[in-house]
C-alpha cells in the first residue's frame, strides 16, 4: 500500500500511468518536429554527432598520424589533389593536414569538452540548487548569495580567473567552464524546486516519512528536470563556444588533439596572406554545431514547458 502511494506521488503523470509509454511519446515527438527549425537543428545535430563519433572511420586521413602527412601537400586550396591523387575537399593546413579530417577529429574534442563540462556543471549546480531549495534557511541564503555573485561576473572572466590560477590545459578548461556555468543550473533548479516543494505530492511523501534524501532524489528531482534539461542543452552550446574561445586565446586544449577553436587559431597566421580555408571551414563546423544545439534547445523549451501542453 505504502509503496503504491509513493510511486503515484512520484510524478504528476501518474494518472496517465496506464497509458503505454509509446502513446505518450509519439504525440510529443510529432509536436517537437512540427517546427521546421527544430527539424533542421535535429538533422544538424545528428550529422555533427555522427561525424564526431565515427571520425576515425569516415575521415579521409588521420591528421595525428605523422606518416600520413606530406609536407609537399601543405597549404593547398580546397578541391586540390594530393601528390598521390587523393582530393582535399576543404584544402590543407600548414603541415599538410587535410582540413576536413582535422574538423572531424576536432569536433570530437570540442564535443567531449563541451558535453563533459556542461554535464558536470549540471550535476553540481542542480545538486546545490535542489539542496538550497529543500533545506532553506541559512544554507539557502548563503548559496544564493554565492550564485548571485557568480552570475554578476561574465563567464569569460570567471574562466580567465580559473585559467590564470590553474594554468593552461584541457582539464583546466573543463574546470573553468564548470566554475563559470554551475550557477545558472543552481538558480534554475532552485527556482523550479521552490514551486514544486509546495505541491501536495511532496507533502504526501513527507507524511509517509520517506527519508529526506529519497524525497529529494525520487520526488523533487524528476519533477524539476524539464527546465534543467533545456538549460543543459543551451549550456552545451555555450560550453563548446567558450572552449573554442579559450583555445583560440591559446589557453585551451593541447596541440596534439586540437579542438575546433585551436584549428581556427592555427589558421589565424595564414589569414593575412589570404589562405582563408584553414580558419573558415572549422568556424563553419563550429557554427553548425552551436546553431543546431540552440535550435533543438529552443524547441525543447517550447515542448517541455507545461504552459504549452495541449
Amino acid at each position, binding site marked *: 500500500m505504502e509503496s503504491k502511494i509513493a510511486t503515484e506521488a512520484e510524478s504528476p503523470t501518474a494518472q496517465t500511468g496506464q497509458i503505454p509509454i509509446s502513446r505518450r511519446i509519439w504525440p510529443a515527438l510529432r509536436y517537437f518536429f512540427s517546427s521546421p527549425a527544430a527539424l533542421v537543428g535535429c538533422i544538424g545535430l545528428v550529422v555533427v554527432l555522427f561525424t564526431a563519433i565515427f571520425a576515425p572511420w569516415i575521415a579521409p586521413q588521420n591528421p595525428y598520424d605523422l606518416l600520413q602527412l606530406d609536407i609537399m601537400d601543405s597549404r593547398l586550396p580546397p578541391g586540390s589533389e594530393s601528390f598521390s591523387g587523393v582530393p582535399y575537399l576543404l584544402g590543407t593546413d600548414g603541415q599538410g593536414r587535410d582540413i576536413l579530417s582535422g574538423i572531424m577529429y576536432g569536433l570530437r574534442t570540442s564535443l567531449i569538452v563541451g558535453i563533459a563540462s556542461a554535464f558536470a556543471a549540471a550535476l553540481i549546480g542542480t545538486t546545490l540548487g535542489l539542496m538550497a531549495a529543500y533545506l532553506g534557511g541559512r544554507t539557502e541564503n548563503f548559496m544564493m548569495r554565492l550564485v548571485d555573485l557568480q552570475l554578476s*561576473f561574465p563567464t569569460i572572466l570567471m574562466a580567465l580567473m580559473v585559467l*590564470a590560477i590553474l594554468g593552461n590545459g584541457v582539464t583546466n578548461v573543463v574546470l573553468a567552464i564548470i566554475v563559470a556555468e554551475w550557477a545558472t543550473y543552481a538558480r534554475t533548479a532552485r527556482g523550479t524546486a521552490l514551486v514544486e516543494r509546495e505541491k501536495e505530492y511532496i507533502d504526501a511523501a513527507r507524511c509517509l516519512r520517506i527519508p529526506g534524501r529519497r524525497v529529494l532524489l525520487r520526488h523533487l528531482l524528476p519533477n524539476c528536470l524539464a527546465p534543467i534539461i533545456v538549460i543543459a542543452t543551451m549550456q552545451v*552550446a555555450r560550453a563548446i563556444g567558450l572552449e573554442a574561445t579559450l583555445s583560440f586565446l591559446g589557453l585551451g586544449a593541447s596541440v596534439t588533439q586540437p579542438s575546433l*577553436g585551436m584549428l581556427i587559431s592555427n589558421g589565424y597566421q595564414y*589569414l593575412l596572406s589570404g589562405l582563408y580555408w584553414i580558419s573558415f571551414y572549422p568556424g563553419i563546423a563550429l557554427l553548425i554545431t552551436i546553431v543546431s544545439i540552440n535550435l533543438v534547445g529552443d524547441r525543447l523549451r517550447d515542448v517541455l514547458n507545461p504552459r504549452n501542453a495541449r
Partner: protein
Amino acid sequence: MVTTLIRRIIQAGFVILAMTVIVFLGVNVIGNPVDILINPDLNQAERLRVIESLGLDRPLWQQYLSFLHGLTEGNFGNSFVYSKPALDVILERLPATLELALCAMVIAIVLGLPLGLYAGLYPNRVSSRVIMTGSILGFSLPTFWVGLMLILLFAVQLGWLPSNGRGETAMLFGVRWSFLTWDGLSHLLLPALNLALFKTSLILRLTRAGVQEVIMQDYVKFARAKGLRENRIILVHILKNLMIPVVTIIGLEFGSLIAFSVVTESIFGWPGMGKLIIDSINLLDRPVIVAYLMMMVVLFVSLNFIIDVCYTLLDPRVRLDGKG
C-alpha cells in the same frame, strides 16, 4: 535606507577581501614564476639574489600581507616583464580598452535599438523575420571567428580597413585616443564592430520584446484613439517606456564588454588590457594578473552596487533589504 546601504557596502568589502585571498593564493600556490623568469644560465648566488629582490623567498602569508598592504596604496608590486608597477602597466592600457568598449556600445545601441523597434512594430514583415534570424546568428556566431572573417573580408580581400593596432592617436586630457584621427578611427571600426555584434543582438531582442509589451498597453491605444501622429506615438509613448529595461541592460553589459574585449583585442592586436592579461597569463607575470583580476573584481562589485542603488532610487517596489 542608510542602514541597507551600509550593509551592502560592508558586504561588497567582504567579497573583495575574499577575492583577494582566492586570487592571490591561487596565483601564488600553483604557478612558479622563478623557473620562467630567471635566466637558467645564472649561477645559484645570482638566482637567490633575483628571487630575493622579487620577494619570492618569503613565506606565503607574509607575501599576502605585504600584497594587501600594497593594495591599499594601489601598489600590486612590479611587473616581472615590464619592471614597472603592475597597476601602471594596466592603467596605461585602460584608455584603449575603454575606448573600444564605448565604441562597441554606441554601435550596439545605434544598430540594435532602431532594428528592434522596427521588428517589434511590424513583426509580420519579411524584413523583420530576417532581422530576428540575424539576431539568432549574432548570438550563435563565435565572436572570435567573426573577428577573423571581418579581417578576411575588409582587410585582406577588400583592403579597405587595417587589421592590427590602434593607428595614429591624438592627445585629449593627457591620454592618447584613436577616435580623434581618421587613421585611428579606421583602426577602431573593425574591432568595435566585432565586439558590438553580441550586444547588438541582445539590445535588438530586448527592444523588440519591450515594444510588443508596450504596444498592448492602454495608453498607447489611447494615444492612437486621440489621433496622435504615429511618429509621436513611437518616439514618446513607446520609446520612452522602453528605455527602462534597455538602459539597465546597457549599464549591466558595459562591464561584460570590458571583459569580452579580451577576445577582440587579441584578434585585432588592440593594445588594451585584454591583450595584456592574455600575454601575462602566458608569461606568468603574476603581479599584472593579480592586479587585473582585482581590478575586474572591484569593477564588477561596484557596478552591481551602483545598479542596486539605482534600482531602489528609481523603483520603490524594489527593496534592498528584501530577500535575495
